[in-house]
C-alpha cells in the first residue's frame, strides 16, 4: 500500500506541476507584461474592486 501511495504522490506532483507550467504559459501569452506587473505597494482597491472570476 505504501509503495502504491508513493507512486500516487509522484503522479500528483507531476500533474500539478505540469498544470502550473501550462497556466503560466497561457497567462504570460494572454496578458501584456505591463498589466501583469502593474501592482503597486500599499494600494487599497477593495472598495472599487469589480474583479469577477
Amino acid at each position, binding site marked *: 500500500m*505504501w*509503495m502504491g501511495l*508513493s*507512486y500516487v*504522490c*509522484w503522479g*500528483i*506532483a507531476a500533474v*500539478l*506541476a505540469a*498544470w*502550473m*507550467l501550462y*497556466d*503560466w504559459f*497561457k*497567462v504570460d501569452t*494572454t*496578458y*501584456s*507584461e*505591463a*498589466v*501583469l*506587473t*502593474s*501592482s*503597486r*505597494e*500599499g*494600494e*487599497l*482597491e*477593495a472598495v*472599487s*474592486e*469589480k*474583479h*469577477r*472570476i
Partner: protein
Amino acid sequence: MTAAVETGLTTTIHGDRVSLLRVLGPAHVWALGVGIVLVGEFTGWNFAADKGGALAALIVCWIVGLLYTSVAMIDSEVTSTVAAAGGQYAQAKHIVGPLMAFNVALFLVFAYTMLEVSDAILLGDTIVAKAGVEGLTHNSFIAATIVVLAWLNYRGVLMTLNVNFVITAIAYISIVILFFSVSPWTQGAVLKLNELVTPGNSLPYGWIGVIAAFQFGIWYYLGIEGTTQAAEEVRSPARSLPYGTMAGMITLLIAAAMTWYVCASLMPWEYLGITYYPLWDAGKLTGSPLLENLLFIATLLAALASANGCINDAARAWFSLGRDRYLPSWFSAVHPRYRTPYRSILFLLPIALAFAFIADLNQAITFSILSGVLQYTFMSINIMMFRKKWPLGSIRRGYTHPFHPLPAIVLFCLCMVTFFAIFLGFGSQLIAMTIFYFLISLWFHFYRYKFVRRGDQFSMPWPKPQGY
C-alpha cells in the same frame, strides 16, 4: 488598461492595475502565523533537552516566549502602520533604508524556504517511519508536499489560508486532547514528571546547557512574525494583523507549555532530546492506539500547515523585491485571475525541491533559524528608529505596543544570547551565512541598486521623519 478585458481565462479586469486581493480576516492571520509555527511543537523544541536537559527546555520555553512576545508586539505596531506585502522588508525600506531592506527580504526568503524544506523532509520521514517498509524513501512525499502546496498557493490566498486554518486547528486540538487524556492534574497515573525530572538530572550541563538550549528553544515559536506578509491581503490591516498575531502568540504559549509538560512527564530527557517525534512518541507512550494515530496525523498536518504558510510568505517577500526592482521586475507579476504572485511561487518551487532532496534536516533547520534570528535582531533596531523618526502622535498607528523601549532591549539581548548558542552548535554555518549576506550586500550596493526607481519605492503617505 482601463477597459475590461475578456480572455479565455474568463477573467475580467477593471481599473488600472492587477493587485493582490484583500480578502483575509484575523482568523486567516492567526492560521498563517500559528500554522507556520505549530510544527515546532511536534519536532524541534525537544532538541533543547539534548543541549541542556528537560528543565532547560522549559526555561527556554518561557525566555524565548518573552523574545517572541516582544517580536509580536513590535511587529504588530509597525505592520499596522506599514501595511504592504513583504512585511518586515517593507518596514525596513521605509524606516532604515534600501540596503537593510534587501537583506531583510533575503532573511525572510531564506528563513521560510528552509523551513518549508524542513517541513517537507519531516513529513516524508514521518510517513516512512510509520510505514516501516523496506525500500520506501521520502522523496515522493516531499515532492507531493511541495508541489501540491505550491499549487494551492498559486490558485489563491483565500483557499490557501482557509485550508491552513482547518489543518492548524486540528493539529492544535490534538495537543489539547493529548494533554487532557493523560490526567495532567494527577502525577503517577500516567505522567511521571517527579521521577523523570529530578534535582539530579534537571540541568545535566548546568547553566551553559540552558544557554545552548536557546538554539532549539526558538522552535517553540519560529515563524509567528510571518503574519505580516499578509498585510496587503487583509481587509483591515490595522485591526486584523495585531489581533491575529497576538492571538497566535497566546495560542502558542499555551501549546508550548502543554507540550513540554506532557513530553517531559512521559520521556527521560536523554530520549526526549534526540527523538524526531516527541508528541507522536508521547501518544504511543499513553498506550492508546487512538492517541497514537491522532498524533501521527497531527504531525503530518502541522508540517503541511507550516510548509503552506512558508510558501505564502517566501513568495510575497520575493514578489516585493521584484516590485521595487531590487530584483528583476519580472518577479512582481500578479496572476490576473487568482491574484497571487505566481511567478515568485513558481520560481521558488524548484529551489525548495532541490534543497529538500539534497540537504539534511539539521542543515535546513539551522539556516532557517539563523535567518530568523538575524531578522529579529533587525526588528529590535527597527522599532527604536521607528519611534524616534515618527514619535507617537505623528502618524496613525493601528496598535501601539507598551513599555517601549523595554521589549526592543529584551529582544536585542535575547538575540545576542541566541547567536552565541548557535555559534556553540553551528559556528561554521553562522560564519558562512554572515559572509554570504556581506557579499550579496556588496552586489546590491554596487550593481543592483542602480536599477531601482528610488522615488517609487517609498509608498507610505507619512510626514517627513523627525530631524529630517
